[in-house]
């Protein structure tokens, strides 16, 4: 599968699509970018008068670019395989720096293992200055059906 086909298979849309472009993808890793639109609704309340991107949204962004794109690639590239859905099953993330509205980030994911339909990746998010803003491990099950 190529990058365009993978993006076309993502099951998200605005305001919950957190992938702009995929820069690299192969059987071991995925790299992509996303720019946080300052108009996203959650900035109004997180926090009052001082918007900063919630950690759960940073985690979601790393999951969409890292785990989900890689899971679609791996399932869709397998012999006779169909691009699957990825159900998030665990996360362990450390947060180092804030990400403000309008910032562009790059996510890099490395496969740890993909066995028995479970994909486990190490992920990190890097800001425009080149600093790691958050990193950790994300895992999910690659399934044929959504929510199953």
């Amino acid at each position, binding site marked *: 599968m190529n990058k365009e086909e993978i993006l076309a298979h993502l099951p998200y849309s605005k305001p919950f699509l957190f992938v702009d472009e995929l820069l690299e993808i192969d059987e071991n890793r995925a790299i992509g970018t996303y720019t946080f639109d300052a108009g996203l609704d959650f900035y109004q309340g997180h926090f009052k008068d001082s918007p900063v991107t919630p950690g759960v949204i940073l985690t979601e962004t790393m999951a969409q670019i890292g785990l989900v794109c890689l899971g679609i690639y791996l399932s869709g590239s397998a012999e006779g395989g169909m691009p699957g859905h990825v159900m998030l*099953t665990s996360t362990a993330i450390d947060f180092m720096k804030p990400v403000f509205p309008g910032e562009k980030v790059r996510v890099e994911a490395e496969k740890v293992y993909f*066995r028995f339909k479970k994909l486990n990746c190490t992920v990190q998010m890097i800001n425009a200055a080149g600093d790691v803003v958050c990193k950790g491990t994300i895992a999910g099950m690659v399934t044929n059906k959504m929510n199953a």
Partner: protein
Amino acid sequence: MDREEIIARLKPIVSTYVEDKDQLENLNEATDFIKDLRINSANLVDIVLDVEEEFGIVIDNLSMEKMLNVGASIDIIETKLVQQ
């Protein structure tokens, strides 16, 4: 290695993923990982990967799908140990 010995080595692996420690005390061949121990499919994969490491065996997809309870898992482990 007899079946009791395999259960004794399975117990610490399984315990990592189980909240209900009472169920763990009563672990026997009929214990179902999902129904009795409430382990999700993702952690079931982790258990199988840990079993591979503990017993020095490689488990294929077809065998993994059968490892839904303790007894079936022991069967698979015994089969794989003999094959080596």
